[in-house]
C-alpha cells in the first residue's frame, strides 16, 4: 500500500525568526565551492553564489529556496535532462546544463539562478567564440580571450551528502529547518484530532 517513494524533504525558513543576516547565503556558497571548501574569507576566491536568496522587503527578511516539487516544473521543462530526481531532491547536473533558462521560466518560486562559472577566482571559458567586434579583454561579463564565460543554472540540492544543509546548520537564529512532509502532516493531524474532540461535542450536544 505504501508509496515506494519518500516525498522530497525541503528547507524552509521561519520568517518570524529570520533577522536577515545572510549567513545562510554565505554558508550555502561556501559548501558548494567548486574547489576545496574554503574555511576562511581569505580562501573565497570566487564570487559568492548562493542557492538560496535572502529576500528583504519592508515586512522583513526571509530566505527563499527550492521546494523540491514532486512534479518539478523545472525538471519537466529541461530539454537535456539535466534536472532529475536524485535520492530525495530535485538535482541539477551542472555539467549537463546548456544555460537555456527554460527551468527559470518554469519555476514558480524563483529558486533557480543562472550564474557565471569561476574556478580559482578565474572565469571558466567555453568553446563559444565572441564576435570579434564585441570581444574585449575582461568585459563586464567576465569574458576574455574572445570566448564566452561558461554559465550554468544552480539551485538548492539540500546539501546532499552532508549531515545537515549548511544553511540550517549555520543559521544563528535557528530560523531554518528541513521539513519532512510525512512527519509534518502527522504532527498537524494529531493536533487537529485533539482539538476537534472537544469542539464537536459542544456543537453536537
Amino acid at each position: 500500500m505504501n508509496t515506494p517513494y519518500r516525498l522530497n524533504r525541503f528547507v524552509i525558513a521561519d520568517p518570524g525568526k529570520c533577522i536577515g543576516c545572510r549567513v545562510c547565503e554565505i554558508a550555502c556558497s561556501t559548501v558548494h565551492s567548486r574547489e576545496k571548501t574554503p574555511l576562511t574569507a581569505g580562501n573565497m576566491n570566487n564570487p559568492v553564489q548562493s542557492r538560496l536568496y535572502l529576500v528583504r522587503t519592508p515586512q522583513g527578511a526571509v530566505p527563499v529556496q527550492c521546494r523540491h516539487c514532486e512534479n518539478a516544473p523545472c525538471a519537466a521543462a529541461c530539454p537535456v535532462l539535466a534536472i532529475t530526481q536524485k535520492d530525495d531532491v530535485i538535482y541539477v547536473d551542472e555539467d549537463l546544463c546548456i544555460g537555456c533558462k527554460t527551468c527559470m521560466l518554469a519555476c514558480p518560486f524563483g529558486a533557480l539562478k543562472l550564474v557565471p562559472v569561476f574556478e580559482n577566482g578565474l572565469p571558466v571559458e567555453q568553446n563559444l567564440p565572441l564576435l570579434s567586434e564585441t570581444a574585449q579583454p575582461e568585459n563586464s561579463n567576465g569574458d576574455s580571450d574572445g570566448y564566452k564565460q561558461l554559465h550554468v543554472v544552480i539551485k538548492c540540492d539540500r546539501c546532499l551528502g552532508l549531515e545537515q544543509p549548511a544553511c540550517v546548520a549555520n543559521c544563528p537564529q535557528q530560523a531554518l529547518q528541513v521539513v519532512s512532509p510525512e512527519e509534518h502532516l502527522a504532527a498537524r493531524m494529531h493536533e487537529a484530532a485533539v482539538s476537534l474532540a472537544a469542539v464537536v461535542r459542544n456543537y453536537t450536544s
Partner: protein
Amino acid sequence: MYAKNFDETVTIDTIIKMTSPIIAIDKELCTGCGRCLEICPVEAIAGKPNTPHEVDTAVCILCGQCVQICSGYDAPDETFPTSRAERLEQRGMLPTVQEPLFAAHYRGDIHRVIEALQTPDMFTIVQCAPAVRVAIGEEFGMPYGALTPGKLSAALHALGFDRVYDTNFAADVTIMEEGAELIKRIQENGTLPMFTSCCPGWVKYLEDQHDDLLEHLSSCKSPQQMAGTLFKTYGAKIDQIDPARIFSVAVMPCTCKKFECERPEMNASGYQDVDLVITTRELAQLIKHAGIDFPALSDEDFDNPLGCYTGAGNIFGTTGGVMEAALRSACEMLTGTPLPDLELEYVRGDEGIRKAAIVHEGVALKVAIVAGLQHIDSVLEQIRSGEADFHFLEVMCCPLGCVSGGGQPKVLLPNQCLEAHIGRKSGLYAHDRSLAVRKSHDNPQVKKLYQDFLGEPLGHEAHHLLHTDHSHNRNLV
C-alpha cells in the same frame, strides 16, 4: 618618511578624527541583522532592526568582534552605489583582493607597507604577534590552527623586510617587567590587584569607562609597543642604523593595535615606536598579492636577536597565556625555585571568568583571568567594593584571547568558529611544548638585552622605554 616625531599636543581623540575610523559599518552592505550589536562587549553599536547599524567611536574599543561576526556582504548580482573597486580603495585594501567584502570592516593599511618596502632608504622591520603564526595558514587552505612560524618568517623575508623580528621576544621582555612590577607591588603594598596591560582594547575600556581604577593597570607597555621601542633604540644600535630610517610594521591578530600604535605617548624611542599595524588577514592578502605560494615555503627562523623567543612569550596569544607566562617567571623570581610543572592548566580557562590560587614554596598567589570583555564589570565591582582577594588580573577583550581577535582570518561558517579558535589555541600550546626554552627569564637574548642595554627590570632605562603612565595618558584625552 613615516617615522616621525609625534606632536605632544595631539590627543587620542584627534587621532581618531584625523584618520578614517579603524572600525566602521558600511551602510550599503549592512542589513541591520543586529548580530554585531549582540556581540559587541561594550554596546558601542546601535541601530534599528533591518536598518543599517552604526558604531559609536567614542565607546568602541576597536576589538573587531563585529568584523568577525558580520555576514552582510557585497553580493555580486546586487548593485550598490559604490563599486567593488571603489569599496576596496575606500577600505585601504589591495585591488587584487577577491574575497567578499562585509559591512563591518576595519581600516586597511597595506598600501603604506608596500610603499615602505619600495622606498630604498627605508630600513623595514616587522614583528608578528604570537596568534598570527597559528592562523595565517588558514588563509591559504591549511586547517584551523595550523602552526606555521617558519613559513611566516619565510614569507616576510620574501616580501623584502630587512629584519623579521618577533613580538614574542617583547612578550618575554614584558614578563620581565610585569613580573618585577607585580613582585614590587606585593612586597611594597602597592595597588593590588594588578591588571595586565597588553590588550589595548582593555586599556582603552578602562580609560574610557573606569578611570578610577587606572592605578591597578600595570605600567608596562604592550609587547607590540615594547618591541617597537626596542627596534628603534637597541635594534637601531645593533644594525648601526639611524632610527629615523626605520619603518616598523607590526602584524597583529588585533584591530585595536592599529589604534595603540598611533597613541601620542607611544614615542619613547624619539619616533613613533610602531609605524604601522596590519592584521593577519592583511598580511595574507599581501602575500597573495606578491604571488608568494605560502604553503610551499620552506621554514626560516626569525632574525636574531629580537626574534628569539620562549614558549612563555608564545602563549600570550591566548587567554590565560600572559598569566601562565608571568607565573612561570614570578614564582621562580620570588622563591628562587622553579615551578615543578610548567603546564599551568588551572589558568587556561576560556569560560569568561576564571580564578586560581597558586602555592609554591610557601608563596601563595591568587589570580583571575577574564576572557571576553563582556564579563569584566562584575570583577571590577568586586575590586571597588574590596571583595577581590586576588593579586593579579589578566584581561583579554576577545573570547579566547588574541587567537580570536578581530584581525584574524574570518571563519565563514559560524558553527565552526569555536573549532577554529580552539585549534589556534592548541597550536600555541603545542608550539610552547616544542620549544627548548619555556620561561621568559631564560631567554638568552632577553638576558643579553638587560646586560648590554636596559640594566635591571624596572630600572631607569627600562622604565623610560618600556613603561607608560596610564593616568597621565588619560589626561591627554
